[in-house]
């Protein structure tokens, strides 16, 4: 057959197929998992960090699982669940009136949990991406949407009440302070709930999306939003004490230390704001966003940046003491174990540094990307990675002591 003729025939088919090809390539061109970005869905795992209470670790997953891990049982290699361990899946009801075309994913088995859980007394608190705050019994969760009395007897609750009632998507972590739980949502509202009953005490509309966690200190709740405003609110009644406006959205959860509140913004600055008056003390410029919350110890602020660097800055002046360059952006909040600073880059490379000098002590490679904040307990650092595993790293010898897959039935 004449080649030109074949090309002509093919071109006619291509003209019909090209728009569909464009649609396919463009819509489904997700960013590789190693870079941590891209499409939401089952691929986007490992956002919730771990939190510890009475020796038990709690964390959530992107398929709605809330898990309790006993590190001693894991280190001994006991089968899951041991005595204090459990896994509970929060189901995702389909919102009424939702319209879904053919490209919709199949019904999710559970809700997404981005934020780190909070634990206090007998309860563990979870904020879900479908807009519920839940308090679950730490030893035997039995959350029941139908109002089964068993959960009330166990002190469990959810907010807002009612199967079809939701607040905005929750991305940040709930924070427990005193007898209240504070949580912000994507609609821009921060809620103060009674930690025991789940009743709402107050709410405050900030007017901009809240994707970070609030910080509570000395009766003041600090919360930042994507309108670039940091609010200081009275924890008693939610009244506004002051407001700081930055030129760009607030990227990281605020951290309070001494007289200052530290936070990163999308204009590539790390700010130190006076906690009493909301005045800017200093700002430090990175080469990308300070997404991870800074860590403050003594007179040093340790700030991980998406420019691949971790900076050590003087608390009082913001002067750079040292910096360490990693292999990829730093998304996770670092931790300190004694005088060792543990930093994980997005690629999963773990760096154990001398906190005073930034000198590298050792590295540990996880091999999967990490977005969740780190949690330290004793000599161990716990990392929730994108492969759904929790890794326990012994900081002293730089070895992975154990790992646990949350991908269980």
């Amino acid at each position, binding site marked *: 057959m004449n080649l030109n003729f074949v090309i002509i025939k093919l071109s006619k088919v291509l003209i019909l197929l090209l728009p569909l090809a464009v649609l396919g390539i*463009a819509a489904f061109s997700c960013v590789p998992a190693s870079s941590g970005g891209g499409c939401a869905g089952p691929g986007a795992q490992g956002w919730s960090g771990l939190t510890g209470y009475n020796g038990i670790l709690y964390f959530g997953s992107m398929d709605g699982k809330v898990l309790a891990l006993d590190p001693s049982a894991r280190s001994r290699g006991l089968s899951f669940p041991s005595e204090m361990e459990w896994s509970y899946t929060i189901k995702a009801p389909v919102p009424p009136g939702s319209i879904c075309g053919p*490209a919709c994913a199949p019904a999710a088995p559970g809700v997404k949990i981005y934020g780190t859980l909070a634990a206090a007394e007998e309860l563990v608190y979870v904020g879900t991406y479908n807009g519920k705050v839940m308090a679950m019994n730490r030893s035997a969760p039995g959350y029941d949407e139908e109002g089964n009395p068993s959960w009330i007897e166990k002190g469990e609750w959810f907010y807002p009440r009612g199967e079809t009632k939701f607040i905005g998507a929750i991305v940040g972590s709930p924070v427990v302070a005193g007898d209240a739980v504070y949580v912000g949502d994507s609609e821009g509202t921060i809620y103060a709930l009674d930690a025991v009953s789940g009743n709402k005490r107050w709410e405050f509309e900030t007017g901009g999306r809240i994707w970070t966690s609030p910080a509570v200190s000395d009766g003041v709740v600090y919360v930042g939003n994507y309108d670039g405003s940091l609010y200081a609110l009275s924890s008693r009644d939610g009244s506004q004490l002051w407001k700081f406006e930055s030129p760009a959205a607030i990227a990281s959860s605020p951290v309070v230390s001494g007289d200052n509140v530290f936070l990163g913004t999308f204009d590539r600055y790390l700010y130190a704001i006076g906690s009493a008056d909301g005045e800017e003390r200093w700002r430090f410029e990175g080469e*990308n966003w300070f997404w991870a919350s800074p860590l403050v110890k003594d007179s040093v602020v340790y700030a991980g940046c998406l420019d691949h660097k971790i900076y050590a800055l003087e608390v009082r002046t913001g002067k750079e003491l040292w910096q360490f360059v990693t292999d990829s952006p730093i998304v996770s909040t670092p931790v300190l174990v004694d005088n060792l600073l543990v930093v994980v880059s997005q690629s999963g490379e773990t760096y154990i540094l001398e906190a005073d000098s930034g000198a590298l002590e050792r590295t540990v490679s996880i091999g999967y990307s990490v977005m969740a904040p780190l949690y330290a307990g004793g000599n161990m650092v716990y990392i929730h990675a994108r492969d759904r595993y929790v890794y326990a790293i012994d900081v002293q010898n730089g070895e992975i002591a154990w790992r646990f897959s949350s991908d269980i039935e």
Partner: protein
Amino acid sequence: MAELWNSIILEPVLNSLIALSEILFSNVGLAIIVLTVIVRLVLFPLTLRQTQSTKAMQSLQPKLQELQKKYGKNQRKLQQETMMLYKEAGINPLGCLWPMLIQLPIWIALYQSIMRALAATPENLLDLSQHLYSWSVVSQAVPLNEHFLWFQLSQPDRYLLLAILVGGTMWVQQKMVTAPATDPRQQSMTSMTTLMMPLMFGMFTLSFPSGLALYWVVSNIIGIGIQYFATGGWGYLTTPSALKPEPARKIPPAEQQSKVIKKAYEKKKGAFRR
């Protein structure tokens, strides 16, 4: 390869979209409309060429059908005659394909930019951070305000309006360029193709962010405009999809037609030489 794509094509488009949204009163809906218009203006010469090539190809349809009738059983002869017909008419059959191929990367970049810029989830936002320039106008705009009219641009349109607009405008655009067929078998095929694509895109609109649907609608409307002015009217939109065969009209045999075209072509060439 991916890095090359990102730095040369995707990131300029993405950052322009974000900067535009900041300039246009923090309105990403307006930014999508303006950027789509700009991109279509830049690509206008190519689109025009594609439209003209398509029109020229379609003007040969009756002659091609005649050839089909005459040499239907002799594929080799049919191919030769078809090629000769294209050659004599001075038409490159690939003329309507290559402008589309050149435009493709830009469409894909615009498409990906809208998806990325809206950053509906934390992972999308984190990914976005790796593609932004250090312009203050960009950092101040992110994350974009996703509200435009009654749409939440990172979410599908709940009210079906965009799905209808996407499907409708795409149908009009396709109908303007699709020549009605005389052969009943070809006729059902043509009408199915004309309907299938708008229906599919309408269905996709139900699932994709409405920011993308907005881009499709604007792009289709501009396409209709270009088609209207380039071809001097509504094309085949006002023609019934099924043309009755025209037995009364005497169509000269294909070979004779070829000669006529050849003569005209040579005359034109001669005039050009003089």
